[in-house]
């Protein structure tokens, strides 16, 4: 609307395909709540990480060979002989972890501030679809170096589909392209690992489209009411996100350059061997909470259902949460429950990395039960009984009140 190109070339294009105006509207004059904190940086960081993964991944695939006899050595070839191959591979491997870190923070931000509530249900769903696609992509990517954990992780996870009644075994054989994880499995995983990121890009575009339809949520959870509630995205949030990016890159670099294998597993530097099972098969850290839920159930099918259910119920959050108030800032009880839920997820991560024995089994079950109790029981109930704190009249009023009382820049 407000985009009036002066350049005749741009005018010519814009008249036929208003793409410059669309980008301009999305990144330039998109009206954004003026009170977004740094918790809102993780969305753009996730987008940044997706681009990093795609670029490093494309270059890595120029040097990688998806064959059971050659894959492991081709990764070592990248590490030793390809110019800056070590940098690309460590960036890609640690980049996956960084991507999950920022996405998990992005999701928890959404949970805290009720960003999934009307009218942002579809936005939330699209985000969860991205999350599921990321998990599939990351899982298949971890198989590609064809180390011991690659092979055995793939075996354990694909075998889960064997729990499906009647057709389970047929499905597993179909997934493998044979009767065990072997060359056909590696080939299709490579193909899909290359494909899915572009599907993610597509869903990200829908995610942003949906976001810009109703605008960003904000720490108060209030809708934009007055003109003074919002500021243009550029330059205010471009510069704020850039600063966030620089800080995040320092964190990323610390792992990338000084502890590149910390988040990995030593066993994956042993070439895959179908005859030797590692002592403990553990997935990458970002799958550990779900792995803990899987193992909390003594029954295989039950465990698989519960694990997928743990993500499936997140789709119902907009309706399970009965409170009309979005932000936990004005929800004293939900706020406490939120942090207990965060602690529960961290406990699940810890349990997921431990062998399923002794007290770990008990704690795994308690943490699993609490995960579902929080979402299915506490969340609907607290919305009914909680007495919310008084809401400010508008975002502007809240910003001014904060500025007045604390005498500090409210969201610097």
């Amino acid at each position, binding site marked *: 609307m407000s985009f009036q190109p002066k350049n005749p070339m741009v005018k010519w294009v814009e008249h036929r395909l208003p793409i410059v105006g669309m980008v301009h509207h999305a990144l330039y004059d998109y009206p954004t709540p003026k009170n977004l904190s740094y918790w809102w940086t993780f969305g753009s960081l996730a987008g940044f990480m997706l681009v990093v993964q795609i670029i490093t991944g494309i270059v890595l695939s120029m040097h990688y060979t998806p064959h059971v006899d050659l894959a492991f050595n081709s990764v070592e070839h990248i590490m*030793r002989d390809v110019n800056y191959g070590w940098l690309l591979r460590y960036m890609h491997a640690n980049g996956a972890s960084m991507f999950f870190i920022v996405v998990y923070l992005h999701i928890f931000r959404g949970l805290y501030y009720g960003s999934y509530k009307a009218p942002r249900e579809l936005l939330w769903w699209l985000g969860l679809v991205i999350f599921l696609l990321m998990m599939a992509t990351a899982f298949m990517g971890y198989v590609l170096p064809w180390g011991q954990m690659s092979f055995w992780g793939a075996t354990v996870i694909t075998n889960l589909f064997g729990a499906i009644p009647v057709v389970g075994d047929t499905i597993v054989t179909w997934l493998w392209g044979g009767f065990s994880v072997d060359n056909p499995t590696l080939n299709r995983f490579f193909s899909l690992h290359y494909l899915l990121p572009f599907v993610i890009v597509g869903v990200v575009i829908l995610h942003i489209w949906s976001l810009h339809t109703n605008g960003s949520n904000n720490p108060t959870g209030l809708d934009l009411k007055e003109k003074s509630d919002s500021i243009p995205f550029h*330059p*205010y949030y471009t*510069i704020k996100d850039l600063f966030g990016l620089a800080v995040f890159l320092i964190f990323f670099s610390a792992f990338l*350059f000084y502890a590149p294998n910390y988040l990995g597993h030593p066993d994956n530097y042993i070439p895959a061997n179908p005859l030797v099972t590692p002592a403990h098969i553990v997935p990458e850290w970002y799958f550990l909470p779900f792995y803990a839920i899987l193992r909390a159930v003594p029954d295989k099918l039950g465990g698989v259902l519960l694990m997928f259910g743990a993500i499936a119920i997140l789709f119902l959050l907009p309706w399970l949460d009965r409170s009309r108030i979005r932000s936990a800032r004005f929800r004293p009880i939900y706020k406490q429950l939120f942090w207990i839920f965060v602690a529960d997820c961290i406990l699940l*991560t*810890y349990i997921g*990395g431990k062998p399923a024995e002794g007290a770990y089994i008990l704690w795994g079950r308690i943490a699993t039960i609490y995960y579902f109790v929080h979402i299915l029981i506490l969340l609907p109930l607290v919305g009914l009984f909680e007495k919310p704190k008084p809401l400010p009249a508008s975002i502007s009023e809240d910003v001014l009140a904060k500025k007045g009382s604390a005498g500090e820049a409210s969201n610097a």
Partner: protein
Amino acid sequence: MLKLIKSLSAAALLSVVAISGAHAAGAAIEYKSVDWSHEGPFGTYDRAAAQRGLQVYREVCAGCHSLEQVSFRTLADLGFTEDEIKAIAAEGTYMDGPNDEGDMFERAGKPFDKFPSPFANEKAARASNGGAFPPDLSLIVKARPGFENYLYSLLTGYEDAPEDHKLPAGMAYNAYFAGHNIAMPAPLAEDGVEYADGTKASVDQMAKDVTVFLAWAAEPKLEERKNMGLKVILFLLLLGGIFYAAKRKVWSDLH
């Protein structure tokens, strides 16, 4: 912002505990701890130790273990001259070809060759080692929990089996090997090699040296990586500072 930093660091701390707890799952044995010169943000490989370690590898380990990912030319990293590398490479024989007549032929090793493997395949290796397969050593330091300390502990961890420990025939007792029964007999003996630089070749010294060499073999780009990391982080600190100042400036007209 302060609140963000506080909650982030609390979550990070908890997660680190969670993840390192998960990491520790397999490692019940406490390894001996050595201060390796290549540890830490500015660490570099001890060239003299790595060169001695190469000698230990070639004279002791290479009898049974391969080093198939490492090519001779990369020894330049450790301070070997071109002529020295050529001489080391030439000691191996390689099957090459076919030549113009269609025949395979043997030739001396060249710097671009990888270290030669002692056995033609895994079956041959097992047949010569009482059924055990000596693993390739290219990545051994990165492929075991405990890393350098594990390897050093293992090499110096040969002991007489305790009274109550039943040692299977053909096995040796090692305090640091999982299950303690190891098929590899104690590889290092006092003065097992004669160091050119006059260093006394004690078991401890040789274990340390060969560990440094194999750490380099597993992670040859370590120095380049740390060096680049320092520059990148210094640059990012500067860039972050500029962005922060710009952010303050841009936002100042709002309040």
